[in-house]
């Protein structure tokens, strides 16, 4: 029962966050400074998530093994070069497989 309540509460709380600005902003334009800030939310939040997923595990610093770090870097460079997000996988996963095979 506890698990259902916990999952339900997180679901409700998360939806409240999703809907919060959809409700508050309404038909009003955002102040210019907030508008500038909103354009930086994506890069900042995604970088924070990637760094957390890459360099930590279960709440403590625990970097991924070297082949995975290289694969993530290769995936990033591939997308920068091609401008297509699919190349993150096309380049990243084979890099991981090859490095893992080479390093035993």
């Amino acid at each position: 029962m506890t698990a259902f309540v916990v999952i339900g509460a997180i679901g409700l709380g998360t939806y409240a966050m999703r809907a919060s600005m959809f409700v508050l902003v309404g038909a009003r334009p955002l102040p210019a400074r907030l508008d500038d800030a909103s354009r930086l939310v994506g890069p900042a939040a995604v970088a924070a998530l990637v760094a957390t997923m890459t360099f930590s595990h279960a709440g403590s610093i625990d970097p991924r093994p070297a082949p995975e770090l290289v694969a993530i870097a290769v995936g990033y460079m591939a997308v920068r070069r091609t401008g297509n997000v699919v190349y993150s996988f096309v380049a990243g996963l084979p890099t991981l497989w090859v490095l893992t095979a080479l390093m035993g």
Partner: protein
Amino acid sequence: MTAVTQPDGIVMNDVSATRNAPVDDDVRRAFVEGARAQVPMAVGVAPFGFAIGAAVGASNVPVFAGWLGAPLIMAGAAQLTAVEMLDAGAAPLMIVVSALVINARIMMYSAATAPWFRDEPMRRRLLLALPLIDQLYLVNVARFEQGDLGRRERQAHWVGGALVLCGTWVTSQTVAIFFGAGLPESFGLDLAAPLALVGLLAMSVKERPAIAAAAVAGLVAVVGVGLPFRAGVLVAAMSGVVAGLYAGDSPPKEAS
């Protein structure tokens, strides 16, 4: 179609001015385009969904409660944290607070997305907010900023993408939880989520303020890994935004 620039620079196409135009085709096209744009994201979301489904299946959390997290929470990092903490017997309030702190970045996405739907009635806005998550926000707002989609096309683009993304998310978890889809570890599919996100990151950091925001956020996230309630992501994202604003204010150094 008449383009109307709003005070904050967002170009809103006045669809009412072309009421007799073949808007339905435009809407259909936008729906398909939105759905297609999320296919590469779904490629990353599916293995992440499998991994979380497998974690739910391997934990002591009731299977149906764990599965409900897929459609109700619709955010992988928070769901995984909740399952891990439930499995470890953490206090319920602490689990809820930790997961919501991880998801607090969604409120920032909400602020950035809301202006694009500001002309919709409240009930529709509440529905449009339901699937808001990293990939949907980043892909759609980047598309909206091109300024050639009207109100209805923006909605269609959003909904088309949401169906692909959310459908993949719930299906992949369902398969992993209820049908025990065992994926070989050697495939390295637990790397799919960071790879998908790093791809989005590469697409979104093109100008100096965004580069500064991402660099500072990444650094602060690593430094803040041990923060209570897993607040590192939120603190890092906010630090990154402030750094990006500062970088945008200061003039670029001239090449010597």
